[in-house]
């Protein structure tokens, strides 16, 4: 693997071919905020909080640093007026769904995002896909997936699989940047194993 030289925030950074901008920045001690990124998982590029500004051949554009591979002589700015403005808007859009997520709030503070800019539609889930991808890529169980598309997209445990696999795993729970996952699991458990009102709750947990 050959070395690639690029510039991040004015700093010369030596990266290996195939690295993403995010990885290269990290290796140089430059931190870029992320929500849907996880070191153990394939880059996904969904939340776009890691958006950075990149200059190539005189053209400036925004890219998701977690998926974009490093290129020779790339000039990257992890903070700029435009980057900050974009991250602020994305965080405000996310806050409409998960206003109380601690991770999101921390970022919101950093970028001056207004928690109340958009009307709340608390779904809790911000569709980062960490649970879905962790289950598929690491556990190879596919007990949770996405259903529907666009604004109707949501995560859903697949009862047949979840009932067999999830009760003693739950490794995806701590990955969730909001509290959505636990809620979704409890909901699916309730739907998959409806409990008669008179009986005591099962001891599954």
């Amino acid at each position, binding site marked *: 693997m050959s070395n690639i030289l690029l510039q991040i925030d004015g700093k010369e950074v030596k990266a290996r071919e195939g690295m993403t901008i995010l990885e290269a920045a990290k290796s140089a001690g430059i931190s870029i905020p992320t929500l849907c990124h996880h070191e153990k998982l394939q*880059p996904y*590029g*969904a*939340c*776009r*909080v890691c*958006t950075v500004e990149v200059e190539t051949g005189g053209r400036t*554009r*925004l890219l*998701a640093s977690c*998926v*974009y*591979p490093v290129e020779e002589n790339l000039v990257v700015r992890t903070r700029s007026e*435009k980057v900050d*403005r*974009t991250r602020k*808007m*994305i965080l405000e*859009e*996310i806050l*409409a769904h998960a206003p109380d997520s601690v991770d999101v709030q921390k970022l919101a503070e950093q970028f001056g995002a207004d928690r109340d800019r*958009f*009307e709340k539609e608390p779904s809790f889930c*911000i*569709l980062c*896909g960490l649970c879905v991808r962790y289950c598929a890529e690491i556990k190879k169980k596919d007990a949770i997936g*996405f259903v*529907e*598309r*666009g*604004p*109707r*997209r949501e995560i859903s445990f697949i009862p047949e699989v979840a009932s067999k696999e999830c009760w003693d795993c739950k490794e995806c729970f701590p990955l969730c940047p909001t509290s959505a996952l636990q809620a979704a699991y409890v909901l699916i458990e309730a739907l998959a194993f409806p409990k008669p009102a008179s009986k005591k709750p099962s001891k599954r947990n």
Partner: protein
Amino acid sequence: MPRINSPLELEKFRKDILAKKDPDKPCIAVCTGTGCLALGAAKVVNAFKEGIKKQGLENRVNVKVDLRETGCPGFCERGPVIVIYPEEICYLQVQPGDVKEIISQTVIAKKVIDRLLFVDPTTGLKSVHESEIPFYKHQMRLLIGNNIRIDPKSIDNYLAVGGYSALAKALSQMNPEQIIELVKDSKLRGRGGAGFPAGRKWEFTRNSPGTTKYVVVNADEGDPGAFMDRALLEGNPHSVLEGLTIGAFAIGAHEGYIYVRQEYPLAVENVTIAIQKAEEYGLLGKNILGSGFDFNIKVHRGAGAFVCGEETALLRSLEGKAGEPKARPPYPAVKGLWDKPTNINNVETWANIPLIVNNGAAFLTSIGTEGSKGTKIFSLVGKVKNTGLVEVPMGITLRNIIYQVGGGIPGGKKFKAVQTGGPSGGCIPEEYLDMQVDFDELAKVGAIMGSGGMIVMDEDTCMVDVAKYFLNFLTDESCGKCTPCREGIRQMLKILTRISEGKGKEGDIELLQNLSETTRDASLCALGGSAPNPVLSTIRYFREEYEAHIKGKKCPAFVCKELISFYIDPDKCTACMICLRKCPVDAITGGKNRIHVIDQEKCTNCGTCFEVCPPRFAAVRRLSGEPVPPSIPEEARTVVRESK
């Protein structure tokens, strides 16, 4: 049918087909494309079949005539369309009842039936031949021109018009590098929307390491109101197969896929038949035309997601996964279908290839503008007299397309805007009607070429409503993977909805612009990247309309239901009872000799009363941004008629 084993055999076979054809034998070509079928073309075909049989018996002569069911020639507005050869007489809006006369008068007696000809609505002049009809006269139909001449289910028909000669030439006289150079020289740009140079894309894929490569036809035409790709695949599928096969040879692929919408059953049928026939003839499969080149094509039907027209989403869908875009790079040319180098081009791009190989790069570069060469097919729809499929040279002005080809705006209405590029395209106002249509010029005014949708809008169109309509479409079609697209479109639609309901707030326009910027710049794929276009272009050119909605609570085009009301002018109402009877919600009170009054509480603003009120009375008024005058008192409602 034995296989054709060499270019020589192909030419001999073609000569045989042509020799068997009697040039004087009449041929009735009936368009059986989707549009004409919907207008009853199948019944016309059946009537011809029966009529030919009957007339032959009655007249005791053997009526020698070919009946050909063809693809779409484009003039859908006046379907079913038929053309009678060799005279090329074009009849429009043909009904089964006309068939007997057509056979006896035109086919046998060689007379023209006047009433079935095209009549120019402005000059009153009639056109006998297809080429004389203004709709066709101002077009340049290199790709769809053959649609009416061939039966798409017959490979012999395609061969008769010179089909597969380009493939023979490419395989026997050119090497892959030469073909790629040729396509690069032709400056052909991808017709799917982005306009990337096709030759360079081919070169990337060819030069990508790996022995297994794929070529793909993107026929997932999802833009509302667009049917360019459908017409090509339905009407001339072999031209696409031929282009694809040449591309596969140049790129080094041995497998190709046609990704076509499930909603295009006729296109699927015709292209599947075409593949079978081409295989039988040795024009597909192993050792094509004895060249040693093997190539197979499979048809894959899409499951109805607009986003699958995006190439990375299309490839994932082909792999059997959910159709969600992936970040590029890596580009499909490097890592595409099953991680192998893959070249995807749109139907129309592939169909251009045989033309270029046969006629040379200069043929294409001689047509069009500096940056965009060749022709482009548009589906011209909306408020225009001649809706249909049009193929025009790049660089033609919007005015020529809309007024010369399209015949202008019907009903004496005024032109307001033309929307190009599908749901994520932009609205172009009147001041740019004289701009040249090409990839770069459209981008400059905030629209896009897209795949060729062109929707004409007249003065009765509300631009806020238009933006809302397209954003609503995109809300359904965004895959939902990335935040700026999913959430940005959702928030923009909410704002547009509240503006159209009269609940818009100061600052909403700026908020829309901010949301647009983030969605455009930070989204994962081109769907999000272009989704704000309808919003941005309508704000750019029709800002005052947004402001009227927000500040004046007024919809100037009288479209947004929450902002309009209907009122019957008591001085004009003659108590004719028409609106009263037609009102679907019984909101109109009155009676014979009693002036009609609309109960605003009950009224749903459907506009029926406005439409049915006879123009000589014109008593129903549309109001927006102003209060409805109080109803006249009961005692004043009696109509006093002047005695005669």
